[in-house]
């Protein structure tokens, strides 16, 4: 008899494998998309590997290569914890094929554990790429003995396990709490926001705790923070001791604790698994609805409102679509209360930076948070199997896309206006420049909306098993988000540099024209895609 857990994991992997699509699909377009997706991910892995090696080079050149193992463990752990936490709803709970799986002779514990293992194996390439890249960097500078290589590689498989288990447990607690409420989606989203924001602020909290009041070199400070964190996060210390001192206890502790924790977590999760899923998959029902006056909307607003209901009905969508807005709102209020200069001082760790030179970057900084929203609202992919509804209605594709883009603007513009005003008031930006910043912020959001729609339509995927596949892992997200974020960071640096030589008003005016042009071109592209797709 085959081991049922292995069978289930194998099937779960096969059911989302691009290779299986390539092998069995008779649809050439689908096959091509699968190949492009695999090549895209290959390139992305290579980029991350290259970046990882460069990062280690920086440490090596500064004579701090001995910290690379701890650094590797901390990066993998942080990545694993964040990715897992945001994936628990959708992967571990509330997934589409729940009924089918639960009706088969699998115990609830087996289903939960296999779903976790599936999530682990799926994200393992990311962690291994980082770990191998850092091993190369470490090897170049430390020239370790041969046995370090296999130990490092084998332990890399265990490195993400403990943070993933802890994040799953946290996700389980969030789901458990959510399942006790009528509006479980909303409660889960609020709790996920809270944990996400806490994780986002953690760096500053740790810094505030360990800071000794002296202005230090950034790398040295980073090294100190990492060493301090390793003192708290034991798996990083065990990993470091295993590869630097060949410590047997480090190896045994990392592998042993990972395995024991796995068993404990799934004993806890398995116990309430069915109850939580039953609650999350059921919907509150009222028996006393009375048809009263209904509101008429324009077609575009009707599509936008439908998108709003779609967002509030899904924890995954709500967290992805609302995280940037919540973060920037909190950031804006903190900036308004504490003052722009103080915030700059905190972020730059007390380095001698004149806050005034950062003012031209305010709209871009805000865009950095709000731009990430456009992967959901603008994309038709989230319609999934329901796409037939809008397809069968007497509306043109361009109207549908316009409605979705309109919703994205409704969702982001008010937050941009609020944040820009808060930042500009706090940074004492003159009125004319504030207005220009608002216009620039609007242009940036128009661009992100249209470009997000281009990516969403070009890489439309309706046959997903799980919303997470569209929201976090789709080709559209990779094509949109990664260049957008990297270019965004580059533009912020460029604007700060240019701001030292060019007048703020001129700079803002130039960017408004440039970004508006890009937005117009993207919009034109959406309209041309609407004619073809």
């Amino acid at each position, binding site marked *: *008899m*085959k081991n*049922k857990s292995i*069978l*289930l994991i194998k*099937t779960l992997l*096969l*059911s*989302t*494998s691009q290779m*299986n*699509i390539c092998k*069995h*699909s*008779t*649809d050439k377009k689908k096959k091509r998309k699968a190949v492009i997706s695999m090549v895209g991910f290959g390139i992305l892995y290579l980029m991350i590997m290259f970046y990882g090696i460069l990062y280690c080079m920086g440490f090596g050149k500064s004579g701090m290569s001995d910290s690379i193992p701890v650094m590797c463990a901390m990066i993998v752990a942080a990545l694993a914890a964040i990715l897992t936490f945001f994936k628990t709803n959708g992967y571990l709970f509330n997934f*589409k*094929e*729940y*009924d*089918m799986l*639960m*009706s*088969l*002779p*699998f*115990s*609830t514990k087996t289903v939960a554990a296999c779903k976790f293992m599936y999530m682990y194996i799926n994200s393992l390439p990311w962690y291994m790429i980082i770990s191998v890249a850092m091993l190369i960097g470490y090897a170049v500078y430390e020239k370790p003995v041969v046995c370090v290589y296999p130990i490092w590689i084998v332990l890399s498989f265990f490195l993400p396990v403990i943070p993933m288990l802890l994040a799953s447990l946290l996700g389980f607690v969030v789901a458990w709490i959510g399942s006790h*409420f*009528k509006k*479980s989606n909303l409660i889960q989203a609020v709790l996920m926001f809270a944990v996400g924001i806490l994780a986002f602020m953690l760096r500053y909290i740790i810094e505030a705790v360990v800071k000794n009041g002296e202005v230090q070199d950034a790398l040295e400070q980073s090294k100190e923070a990492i060493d301090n964190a390793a003192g708290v996060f034991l798996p990083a210390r065990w990993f470091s001791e295993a590869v630097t001192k060949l410590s047997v206890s480090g190896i045994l502790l990392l592998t042993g604790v990972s395995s024991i924790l796995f068993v404990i977590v799934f004993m806890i999760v398995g116990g309430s698994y*069915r*109850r939580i*899923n*039953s*609650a999350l998959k*059921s*919907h*509150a*029902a*009222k*028996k006393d609805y009375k048809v009263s006056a209904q509101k008429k909307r324009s077609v575009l607003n009707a599509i936008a409102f439908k998108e709003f209901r779609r967002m509030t009905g899904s924890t995954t969508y709500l967290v992805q679509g609302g995280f940037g807005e919540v973060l920037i709102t909190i950031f804006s209020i903190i900036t308004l209360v504490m003052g722009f200069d103080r915030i700059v001082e905190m972020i730059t760790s007390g380095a001698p930076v004149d806050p005034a030179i950062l003012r031209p970057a305010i709209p871009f900084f805000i865009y950095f948070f709000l731009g990430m929203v456009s992967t959901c609202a603008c994309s038709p992919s989230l319609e999934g199997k329901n796409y037939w509804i809008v397809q069968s209605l007497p509306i043109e594709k361009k109207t549908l896309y316009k409605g979705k883009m309109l919703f994205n603007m409704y969702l982001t513009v008010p937050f941009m206006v609020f944040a820009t005003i808060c930042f500009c008031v706090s940074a004492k930006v003159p009125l004319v420049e504030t207005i220009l910043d608002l216009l620039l912020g609007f242009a940036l959001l128009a661009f992100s909306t249209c470009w997000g729609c281009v990516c969403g339509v070009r890489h439309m995927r309706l*046959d997903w*098993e799980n919303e997470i596949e569209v929201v976090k892992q789709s080709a559209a997200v990779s094509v949109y988000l990664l260049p957008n974020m990297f270019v965004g960071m580059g533009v912020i640096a460029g604007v700060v540099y240019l701001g030292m030589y060019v007048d703020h008003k001129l700079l803002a005016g130039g960017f408004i024209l440039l970004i508006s042009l890009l937005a117009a071109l993207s919009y034109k592209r959406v309209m041309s895609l609407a004619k073809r797709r």
Partner: protein
Amino acid sequence: MLKINNYSKTYGGGKKAADNVTLHVESGDIYGFIGHNGAGKSTTIRAVVGVLDFEEGEILIDGHSVKDEPMACKRVTAYIPDNPDLYENLTGIQYLNFVADVFDISAEDREKRIKKYADTFEITDALGDLISSYSHGMKQKVAIISALIHEPKLMVLDEPFVGLDPKATFQLKEIMHEMCEKGTAIFFSTHVLDVAEKLCNKVAIIKKGKIVASGTMEELTEGHSLEEAFLEAENEE
């Protein structure tokens, strides 16, 4: 084979989707479960197959409690949901093999059964294609074959005829008769009263979560049609 005793399920918002439901399905029964939309049919069925958690009552399959011994119950049960969510990126044959593996069916038996039922439903040629390329009816056929593959003692079907073409509907009814003669108990929900009347030996009518009538077809109809009996039960407060 299936005993539902005083089963109740309340959803958030206070709506009682199933209220003190009691019914017994014996081996060899084809038991129809009828009621209008939202009456509580799927809520009861999902609890029977171990998908939905419930607070009150007891459900026994082949003498085993669904709550306390879920694995023993699932091993002898097959479930076909009203809208089968199958793994879209598996081929039909990959999915059937997965289910056969889960039930530990030998290679010979699975080949024989897959061939038999796939030929019956005229889907053999498409088994090598991805499920995502199938129509709703084809997916339903794959779900039915996967349910038959381990020769269950209890078959639970939620609206099994929805989406099936007339020939497949006829074949499924034939298979249900065949299974019933072998001693399998069949419990299924349907809206199609004509089908229920011709197919079932026992029927239960559920209204607002409560069983308002149940028994053998003869007891329930008393010389009238099932449609008349159903409307009468529906109209009674």
